[in-house]
């Protein structure tokens, strides 16, 4: 799933791409609204939407200085949404999956051995590396590692947390490289 955030430090290409995307969204909304309200026929709605998007793109091209401001405002809105979504999603999953599993089978969880082991003299590469931060395999095989760990350690139920982890990753506003930094306790 793609990250909801726009690229940081936008160059001119990014600004133009952002404006084209926003224009397309406006055109899409206008066209859909016109069609749903019965104001225009399907062809007319398509024409209206395309026209609005085209005009918006041209307006942006003629006043490129305002693109940077628009980009920053949209990024701010995106961050606000991402923060809200992160809090809401973690809340929903806490009160559903975590609470249900903890209340009914929590004893089993507490008795389970921790996956953490002291390092000793074994090289770093010998340990499991779900995030790829040690071996540099950013994101490569992360899902396979997680699945393997879940099955091996008898915590296969954590596989159902994957939708939540996917959404959390997508709304992560921090500069994370592979896995979200706040999910380490799962391992």
């Amino acid at each position, binding site marked *: 799933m793609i990250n909801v955030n726009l*690229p940081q430090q936008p160059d001119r290409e990014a600004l133009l791409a952002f404006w084209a995307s926003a224009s397309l969204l406006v055109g*899409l909304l206008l066209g859909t609204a016109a069609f749903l309200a019965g104001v225009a026929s399907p062809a007319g709605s398509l024409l209206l939407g395309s026209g609005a998007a085209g005009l918006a793109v041209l307006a942006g091209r003629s006043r490129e200085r305002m693109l940077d401001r628009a980009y920053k405002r949209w990024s701010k809105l995106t961050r606000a949404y991402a923060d809200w979504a992160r809090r809401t999603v973690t809340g929903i999953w806490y009160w559903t999956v975590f609470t249900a599993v903890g209340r009914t089978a929590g004893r089993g969880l507490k008795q389970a051995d921790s996956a953490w082991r002291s390092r000793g003299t074994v090289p770093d590469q010998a340990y499991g590396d779900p995030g790829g931060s040690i071996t540099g395999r950013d994101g490569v095989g992360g899902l396979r590692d997680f699945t393997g760990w879940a099955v091996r350690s008898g915590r296969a139920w954590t596989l159902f947390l994957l939708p939540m982890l996917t959404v959390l990753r997508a709304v992560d506003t921090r500069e994370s490289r592979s896995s979200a930094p706040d999910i380490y306790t799962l391992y």
Partner: protein
Amino acid sequence: MGVLRFLLAGVTAVVAVVLTLPVVLVGAPFWIVSSLTRAFRTLVRWVQPR
């Protein structure tokens, strides 16, 4: 106990996904603009190589 935990997590995960959907839908404009921007940026770079 492991099977019970697995089943319970599965059932509640379905509920959680349904509850999470509105959160994702509210942010639909952000998802659309973000993904389109990345795609268009690649396109603009391809059309106008620096």
